[in-house]
């Protein structure tokens, strides 16, 4: 029985063992499987890690390569300015190794004078929590060289706070040097340009003075008894000096344009009359040639435009002169055609056409360049400076146009351009400002005050104002003027600038500032000085206009018509006067005609006044010379200077102008020697005026009889 139980137990135990082994095997298999899975997972993960590491390394290497290629210092610095990263290339530029710089504070390398500045820069970034900033400073390279550095610094932030700086620093020493050099070069260039301008300005004066003497003397020489050969020589002398004169004028114009010193006057312009006058002038010039002068003016040009008469004249004289120079026969035509016209502006197309030799294609490109002429070998046969066309082109450009040329060699040339003028809307026939035109001012209620110390000038202005029936009063100096202005209101004040007791500047300033009845009355400055600075000064202290002495009646009238209404009348016949009385050739006929017109008694009056006025002042002038009082000499020279112009002796005015400058420079020796040279001439002139005065007297009494 027992053995059976044991056998059964044994069987059960065996069975249980098999079960256990099966379970074990199953579990072992599961374990193996799990291990396998784990291993594969591990491998996958490891692979991934490796891959990522490779990627990371290669991208870091890429950055590293990049950073090392750059020729600049790239670095990280912590908040205290200690370098924590840097490319190799950077420090090497300055002779340092990477090890020498990493872990070091920047101050160690910065120029001692810039350390504070550099610290302040970082401090500011930290304090204001800036994202980025730029800064220039100097460092000292290992071999002791000072180098300029420009660096862009970017803040690296964590949770809004700067934890370190990343920077790119560049050596800008060469760049700074280059900029410095450029600045110097620019300054040098500007200085030499200025010097050139000054040279031209002074040269023009220095050259023109003797040249005028050459021309003048040649004319005198022409009038003496000369044989045929001598006459020929004088002619050559005259021609050459005239060419030289033109050349100098052209060079001067060019330099004025180049230096921007040309000012375009904006005045009422009768374009129709201007073109007709030009046509007339050229028609006369072309009289003896087989060339026709034609003028076509658009009928639509019938109002006053705003423009610069002088510069327009220069443009057309140059273009027509040019046409004439290169045309042997055929015609020269000038045409003005309206392109657009309205109340505000008129756009006109101008054309100067000739049937001359034309311009070859090669030359068309450079005819507007300075000193370029048709071709070098033709230069001598046609003459000229080569500046005419460039000047013309530039003037037109200044007026807003563009001079263009078309030409066929052998057939002729066409120069054309467009200019847009402002339109005044005033019809041409309604207004006239021609000097020979007379008319009447509407007589004002208030008088004009003329502040002038010179009796000759007083007389001159007074005479003209009387003639135009404009009421006026005189003040002899600034103080008197102020007193009169406090007592009475005037329509207009003429104010001489240089006067005894109180000069014109101070008087005008007083009238503008102190209590008086004329603080709003327009003031016109009168001065013998033509300096622009003086003109500017008068504007600054509030004077309204400026009239240079000597002035002719039409210049005075031009000023007056701005303030008083003027009614024009028909022209008077001026020819009559010229035919009737001829002044001595020594006197400036044109000037006298301009000033006195047909009013011979007026001329006589002025001549007589001249004699008294001059005799007095000249005596005082001589007295000053005796006393060697150079200041006083200058004062009298200034006083005498303008009155010679009044009698047509502009050349003596020029002498006194020179004497005034010499006295101003306190050049006593120069002053005396110049005076001795011209003394006789002055005395002769006085005699001449006396003779002319007598002639005038006789003529007038004869006429009246």
């Amino acid at each position, binding site marked *: 029985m027992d053995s059976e139980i044991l056998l059964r137990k044994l069987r*059960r135990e*065996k*069975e249980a*063992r098999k079960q*256990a082994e099966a379970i074990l095997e199953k579990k072992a298999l599961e374990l193996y499987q799990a291990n396998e899975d784990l291993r594969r997972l591990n491998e996958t993960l490891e692979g991934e890690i490796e891959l990522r590491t490779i990627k990371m390394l290669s991208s870091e290497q890429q950055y590293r390569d990049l950073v090392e290629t750059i020729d600049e210092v790239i670095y990280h610095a912590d908040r205290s300015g200690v370098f924590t990263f840097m490319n190799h290339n950077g420090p090497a530029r300055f002779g340092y190794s990477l090890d020498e710089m990493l872990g070091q504070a920047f101050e160690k390398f910065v120029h001692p004078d810039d350390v504070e500045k550099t610290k302040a820069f970082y401090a500011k970034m930290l304090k204001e929590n800036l994202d980025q900033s730029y800064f220039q400073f100097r460092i000292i390279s290992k071999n002791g060289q000072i180098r300029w550095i420009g660096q862009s610094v970017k803040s690296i932030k964590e949770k809004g706070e700067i934890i370190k700086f990343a920077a790119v620093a560049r050596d800008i020493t060469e760049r700074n040097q280059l900029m410095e050099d450029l600045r110097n070069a620019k300054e040098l260039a500007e200085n030499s340009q200025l010097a050139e301008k000054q040279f031209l300005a002074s040269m023009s004066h220095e050259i023109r003075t003797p040249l005028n003497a050459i021309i003048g003397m040649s004319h005198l020489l022409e009038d003496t008894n000369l044989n045929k050969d001598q006459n020929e020589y004088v002619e050559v002398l005259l021609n050459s000096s005239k060419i030289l004169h033109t050349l100098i004028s052209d060079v001067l114009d060019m330099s004025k344009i180049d230096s921007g010193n040309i000012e375009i006057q904006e005045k009422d312009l009768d374009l129709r009359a201007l073109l007709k006058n030009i046509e007339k002038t050229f028609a006369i010039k072309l009289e003896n040639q087989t060339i026709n002068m034609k003028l076509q003016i658009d009928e639509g040009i019938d109002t006053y435009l705003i423009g610069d008469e002088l510069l327009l004249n220069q443009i057309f004289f140059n273009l027509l002169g040019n046409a004439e120079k290169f045309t042997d026969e055929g015609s020269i035509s000038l045409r003005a055609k309206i392109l657009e016209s309205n109340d505000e502006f008129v756009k006109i197309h101008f054309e100067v056409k000739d049937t001359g030799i034309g311009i070859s294609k090669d030359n068309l490109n450079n005819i507007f360049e300075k000193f370029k002429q048709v071709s070098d070998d033709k230069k001598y046969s046609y003459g000229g400076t080569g500046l005419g066309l460039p000047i013309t082109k530039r003037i037109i450009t200044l007026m807003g146009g563009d001079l263009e040329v078309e030409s066929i060699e052998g057939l002729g040339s066409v120069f054309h351009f467009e200019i847009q003028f402002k339109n005044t809307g005033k019809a041409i026939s309604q207004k006239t400002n021609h000097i020979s035109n007379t008319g009447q001012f509407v007589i004002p209620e208030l008088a004009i005050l003329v502040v002038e110390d010179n009796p000759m000038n007083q007389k001159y202005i007074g005479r003209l104002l009387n003639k135009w029936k404009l009421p006026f009063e005189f003040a002899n100096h600034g103080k008197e003027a102020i007193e009169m202005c406090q007592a009475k209101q005037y329509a207009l004040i003429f104010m001489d600038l240089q006067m005894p007791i109180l000069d014109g500047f101070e008087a005008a300033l007083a009238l503008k500032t102190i209590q008086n009845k004329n603080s709003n009355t327009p003031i016109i400055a009168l001065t013998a000085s033509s300096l622009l600075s003086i003109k500017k000064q008068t504007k600054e202290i509030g004077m309204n206009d400026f009239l240079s002495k000597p002035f002719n009646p039409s210049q005075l009238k031009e000023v007056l018509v701005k303030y008083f209404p003027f009614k024009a009348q028909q022209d008077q016949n001026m020819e009559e006067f010229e035919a009737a009385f001829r002044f001595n050739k020594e006197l400036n006929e044109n000037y006298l005609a301009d000033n006195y017109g047909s009013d011979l008694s007026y001329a006589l009056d002025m001549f007589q006044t001249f004699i008294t006025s001059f005799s007095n002042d000249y005596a005082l002038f001589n007295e000053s010379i005796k006393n060697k009082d150079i200041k006083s000499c200058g004062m009298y020279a200034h006083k005498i200077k303008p009155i010679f112009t009044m009698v047509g002796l502009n050349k003596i005015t020029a002498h006194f102008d020179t004497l005034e400058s010499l006295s101003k420079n306190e050049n006593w020796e120069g002053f005396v020697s110049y005076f001795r040279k011209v003394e006789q001439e002055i005395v002769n002139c006085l005699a001449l005026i006396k003779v002319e005065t007598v002639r005038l007297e006789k003529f007038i009494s004869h006429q009246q009889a």
Partner: protein
Amino acid sequence: MKGIVFTEFLEMVEQEYGLEIADHILENSQLESQGAYTAVGTYSHDEMLQLIGNLSTKTATDIPVLLKAFGRYLFDTFLSSYPSFFERTNSAFEFLESIENHIHVEVRKLYADAELPKFTTQRVDDIGFEMIYSSERKMADFAEGLIERTMDHYKTPYEMTKTPLNEDGTMVKFVIMKK
């Protein structure tokens, strides 16, 4: 049910009643496993019920008494086979708490399919302890034996009340008071 319960049960029967009785209950049961048990295997709960039933009949001992005795027996087996269970506990209550919180957790790591009873514990003051047994196996008596042996092991004098919380005996509350 885990094989260890069967192997330890039969071990106890052999020790207490001898080989013949053990053989007898095995031979008189309809066992799918043919009575061959290994501790690492898993067997039907029904087999355990047959074995206990047969033992009860053969020894004329009530099943609850047998189950309680088995509980006490199994505690000792655990004590010698799994000393790690006891390393971190210093008192009877701590050990009882660790059954649910530690031992069953470890068992499930090894045998994901193990069907374990649930012990909910709660301390009352310093001396009282409440433990609710819940299991479809209805072996609260077995648990009682385990608890008694635990208290003895930690030499803790106690009084215990046992209250069924429902009629089928799947939930039973033990209240243990230290003396």
